[in-house]
């Protein structure tokens, strides 16, 4: 099997020690990759089935365009993890860089299916142009979470930096922690005691905002009421 190293094609066995037997059924295959993978890109890109377990930190674009199977990373991942994925599951035990589940630069086709779970923090613009699927973030999120999203669900258990859902057309964003600020082109609709994400009930109460009206969007932005006292002034519009 050939892989690119810089601008040259190299045999995979020149770069990795490889053990194990090939199997005709992708579903039965589990790849275990370990080592210093910080500069290794596109692990599991276009994956359709099977399982990959990575030990250590990995580089950009892990799980790019994956449509099935499962990737488990016992470490951190760099930017564009799960970008443009259409199915399957990507779980990161550590943190993720920017553009988690996003579209590639310039494209409007973000993640459209599958599930991404990040146990740590994520960078900016997670779920950018997301169309479907679920992203669960147990840590904190950077700015512009779900920017331009038109479908799917994102839940952040921790805090979130500025402007979640900016330019969103549809879909659902739930933030359980503190949000530094939201764009003014969201309107408050009501206060919900609970919200469901991918079948899981999350306890609130949550402010429910609709927007981004600047883009004629009707996305739903749920923000924890108890953790965001600075948003209390919105209640007068209810």
């Amino acid at each position, binding site marked *: 099997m050939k892989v690119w190293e810089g*601008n040259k094609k190299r045999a995979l066995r020149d770069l990795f020690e490889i053990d194990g037997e090939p199997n005709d059924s992708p579903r039965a295959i589990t790849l275990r990759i370990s080592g210093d993978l910080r500069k290794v890109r596109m692990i599991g890109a276009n994956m359709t089935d099977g399982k990959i377990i990575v030990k250590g930190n990995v580089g950009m674009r892990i799980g790019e365009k994956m449509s099935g199977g499962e990737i488990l990373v016992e470490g951190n991942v760099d930017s564009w993890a799960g970008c443009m994925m259409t199915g399957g599951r990507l779980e990161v035990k550590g943190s993720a860089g920017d553009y988690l589940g996003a*579209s*590639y*630069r*310039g*494209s409007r086709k973000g993640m459209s299916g599958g599930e991404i779970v990040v146990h740590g923090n994520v960078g900016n613009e997670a779920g950018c142009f997301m169309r479907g699927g679920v992203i669960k973030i147990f840590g904190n999120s950077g700015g512009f979470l779900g920017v331009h999203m038109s479908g799917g669900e994102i839940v952040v258990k921790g805090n979130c930096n500025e402007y979640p859902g900016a330019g969103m057309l549809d879909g659902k964003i739930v933030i359980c922690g503190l949000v530094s600020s939201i764009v003014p082109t969201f309107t408050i609709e009501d206060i919900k005691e609970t919200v469901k994400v991918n079948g899981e009930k999350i306890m609130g109460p949550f402010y429910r905002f609709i927007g981004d009206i600047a883009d004629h969007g009707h996305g739903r932005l749920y923000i924890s009421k108890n953790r965001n006292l600075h948003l209390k002034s919105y209640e007068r519009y209810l």
Partner: protein
Amino acid sequence: MNLLIKNGLVYDPINGVEGEEMDIAVKNGKIVEKVNERRAKVIDASGMIVMPGGIDIHTHIAGSEVNAGRLLRPEDHFIDFEAKTEVTRSGVGRSVPSTFITGYRYARMGYTMICNPSMPPLEARHTHEELDDTPIVDKATYPLLGDWWFVLEYLEKGLIRECAAHVAWMISATKGYAIKLVNPGGVEAWGFGRNVEDLDDPVPNFGVTPREIIRGLCKVNKMLNMPHTIHVHTNRLGQPGNFTTTLETMETVSDMADERPVIHITHCQFSAFKGDDWSTLRSGAEEISKYVNSHSHVTLDMGQVVFTDTTTMTADGPWQYTLYEISGNKWINHDVETETGSGILPFRYRRKSYVHAVMWSIALELALLIKDPWRIYLTTDHPNGAPFTTYPRIISWLMSQKARERMLEKINRKARKRSLLQDIDREYTFDEIAIITRAGQAKALGLRSKGHLGIGADADIAIYNIDSRTVDPSRDYRKVRRAFKNAAYTIKSGRIVARNGVIVESIFGRTLWVDAVSSLDDETATKVSKDIEKRFREYWTIELENYIIPERYLRFPICIQPRRRSEK
């Protein structure tokens, strides 16, 4: 290097050679009568067809709008990239490829000359820098002059000689090749949020009409004895019902006709729409082709649409705004001082879209209904209708009714029902393909040493691995497509540059430009020079000294003096 191409089936329409088995000899980059076989590299072209190198009369491959398109579309780079090899450099981009791979991709298809059709004069330096970076092929570029304030001013006052002098200065200063008009008057009106509605709608702030601009510049073109005609992107391009404007545009210069065509309507498909709105859109190809078949003063190129993702770019700002409104895509709009404007927007043509399917059909209808292949040329208006790499598919559609029918089955049902293609059984021959892809274009561009394989011609040659004696293109259209996709050999200036789709040598081609000022007498030339100097201080944001492109700035310039030009 001397070359001897042996036993090829030669298609050289300019010299009346149609599929004859013969040898072609090459010496010092030119075609010669014979070479010493023992001292020449011999190419066995048995069972292959040999044509002059391909020429593209209209392809957006360099300059500010192309580069802005590249910046706008990183996702286009992401899906298509080429690694460097021992002889080639790397590059990216499918619909707006970077300069190096643009040259390589054309060379792989057997093309050896390409013309960049819309250069804002202010951006000429940038355009030439990119053209210089585009390897292998020869190049030419057309400055946009149909909305230049000075042209509008002079034509409004009826000062045709002064207008000609300024146009000549501009073509020489920017190292241009032909006069390009884009939505004449409409681009200027767009600067004020308007467009022109028809040929007699006056341009705001100037009073001159599109008709006067077209007629005026056609006259100027003749006065300067330019090698190419005026190259016109019509008013109301892309609007339903615009075929009447196109017919009027052609007719408005019919009285200036002589033995040569006087106007080239570019990417005519976009200007051949019937109907009142998008839902009633119909093909106007029948009316356009009827006119062209009965008048000899017009040439056209197709502007074929192929169902794919691409990037649209044109100086026609209002049209790009319409596309933005239709698609909602990201877009760029740009105004170029006193000269012109532009717009760029990604676009996907879909088979199941009624409008897109009608557009696909119109271009083929035009090519098939216009009887004289010398007056219609194969283009996609790259990248507006599709990337130029789709040419082999278009060739197969032109050569095979079966190939067209297969695509017709896949398109929007309403569009299929209304398509004229169902009643057209014409199929292009290899000779006609040679005309619409090289010989006709060379003739339209006034290129004496290109587009043919006669003695003294440039040794720009394409050899395709298909035997025209045994292959029936009507049935085996896939073989045709494969053959034209990767030329068996592409020879540029007598050197083998590509073999079976692999670039084996990368050289740099030449840039052809017209020294139109040489058409003027010394007194007029000096007067214009002084006038321009004064106006530059008043109107432009850059200094005159930085505006003029000196010939030494180009890598390999070839200057064409209109007065000394003689027709083949």
